[in-house]
């Protein structure tokens, strides 16, 4: 960086420091996912077995998305993360900016082994997730059935929680306003459609509690802080199973998408990172994931082996896909920056 200290002085200083510290080279392989039940499942079927088989120690961290974080880490230098689970738009944008290492598909069993949405130059599909309307059946006797009900504060008094960010929040706002699922992105591609979504959010604003991390909606529902949540469906099913909560999911109008494994550029553990990605996308490993995480998987052979009892609770079940909206990656690649800026300004007011 020009503008900072002269480059050479900085280099010398860095050299000196790394000699003293010696820590930079000793960092363990670090895998970053989205926390909560999903990461707990990954720990079980990916992290631990990987370390057992390869003897490569593995550190984990969690995050809640946002390409800026990855950009900062790569651009500031010395990224402390190696493998990251990113959303589809983050995959494509980051790939264009050279934030990720390229994937060697031959080592993964070829592109054809995966569902088409999981294949790209910089990443491999990791999970299929969805966000849907959820509520606590033990607290709400009157069952909501659509996003319009989510906005109906007369029939369902109390707070609701939505993710603090424009992605799928704007889609949900439009669906609640009567836009049919097939029309959502056509409307959202017009400036008037975006205004309409924000106006709709304005109406609900006094009743909104924002969540940033995927584990929050469950806590908010359980504590009665909110009556409904736009939440990751997988975590609701996990709470049903593990904590015997009566959380219910409305698949109608849910939004689903694929998350991907990427390896950050400049990773000190590049080779082990790639080994991990290979390990975590092998059919025999992926097939154990849905039962634990209640999320879909991307390797076609693994997807076929899913336990039928679990399958109906997965975003990938045909009945669920039929009433859901597929996240329009192209739309978000083009608009995420601008809409995030507008959303943040709106939310900070």
């Amino acid at each position, binding site marked *: 960086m020009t503008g900072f200290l002269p480059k050479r002085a900085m280099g010398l200083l860095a050299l000196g420091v790394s000699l003293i510290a010696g820590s930079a080279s000793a960092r363990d392989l670090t895998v970053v996912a989205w926390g909560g039940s999903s990461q707990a499942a990954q720990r079980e079927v990916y992290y631990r077995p990987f370390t057992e088989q390869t003897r490569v120690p593995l550190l984990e961290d969690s995050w809640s998305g946002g390409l800026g974080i990855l950009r900062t880490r790569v651009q*500031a230098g010395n990224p402390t993360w190696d493998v990251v689970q990113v959303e589809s738009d983050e995959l494509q944008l980051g790939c264009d900016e050279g934030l990720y290492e390229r994937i060697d598909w031959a080592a993964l069993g070829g592109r054809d082994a995966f569902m088409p949405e999981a294949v790209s130059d910089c990443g491999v599909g990791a999970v299929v997730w969805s966000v849907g309307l959820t509520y606590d059946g033990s607290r709400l006797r009157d069952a909501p059935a659509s996003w319009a009900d989510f906005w109906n504060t007369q029939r369902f008094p109390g707070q609701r929680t939505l993710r603090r960010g424009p992605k799928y929040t704007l889609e949900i706002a439009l669906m609640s306003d009567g836009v049919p699922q097939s029309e959502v992105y056509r409307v959202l591609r017009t400036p008037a459609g975006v205004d309409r979504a924000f106006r709709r959010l304005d109406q609900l604003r006094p009743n909104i509690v924002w969540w940033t991390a995927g584990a929050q909606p469950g806590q908010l529902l359980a504590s009665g802080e909110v009556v409904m949540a736009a939440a990751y469906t997988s975590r609701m099913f996990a709470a049903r199973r593990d904590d015997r909560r009566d959380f219910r999911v409305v698949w109608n109008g849910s939004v689903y998408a694929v998350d991907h494994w990427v390896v950050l550029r400049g990773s000190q553990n590049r080779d082990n990172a790639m080994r991990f990605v290979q390990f975590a996308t092998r059919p025999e490993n992926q097939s154990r994931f849905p039962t634990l995480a209640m999320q879909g998987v991307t390797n076609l052979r693994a997807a076929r082996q899913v336990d039928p009892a679990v399958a109906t609770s997965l975003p990938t079940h045909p009945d669920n896909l039929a009433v859901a909206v597929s996240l329009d990656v192209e739309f978000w690649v083009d608009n995420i920056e601008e809409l995030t800026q507008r959303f943040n300004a709106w939310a900070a007011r």
Partner: protein
Amino acid sequence: MSLPLAPVDRALRWGLITLCVTILAFLLVPVLAVIPLSFNAGSFLTYPLAGFSTRWYVDFYTSARWLPSLSNSLFIGSIATLIATLLGTAAALGLDRMGGIPRQVLNAVFLLPVVVPVVVIGSSLYALFARLGLTGSYLGLILAHALLGAPFVVITVAATLAGFDRSLLQAALSLGATPLEAFRRVTLPLILPGVVSGAIFAFATSFDEIVVTLFLAGPQQRTLPLQMFDGVREQISPAITAAATLLFLVSVGLVGVIELLRRRTERLRGAASSGS
């Protein structure tokens, strides 16, 4: 009260006492309310309790995250405290015998890390350390925590020095003691309570520090507060309340030590001033 009070004033006084009890309750009850929750059998942070259980303490001790974060906190805290105490004590001794503008300026520089908002310190250090490869390293965190702790050592040592009878040192020197000997025999025992309470302050600062840690720590350097922060925000589990209870007990212990030290100093001061 030596003067008779009118009934109105007596009512006022009782009002005051009631008010103060309420305020003290406001200060203490929230912290105490967490403790029963840590023995909750259920897995959400809500009252009423689902039953008594020590499962969250077991969780704390067995989980791959909590215990390592505790040892990280202890490790970073102790090294940072050592650095802060050495640097801070030396600086306070030097400052004490300086005067005028240099003293004021240096004093300001040394105390500034307490006044400057931590976020500013955190983000500045992040920008610099990222370039030096010090983000996500123990060294980076230790340096940052030492910086935040040093002012407290300067303050507490300076305070003990302010009540320090300089003639004792003069006497020792005139009796032929080398300066080092005089320091070890005379100065050190007198400032020791200040050094120790400064060190405790520095340790507590590091042990509680979250903002700078948020910027600088990598997953390997996860400290207890960082783990709690993520816990509250991301992976909500009542193990947090178990951690909170343990942290609370640590703070009670530290307050106890500080209180004892304070009394000791007061006693010594009292003895010294009545003796001279």
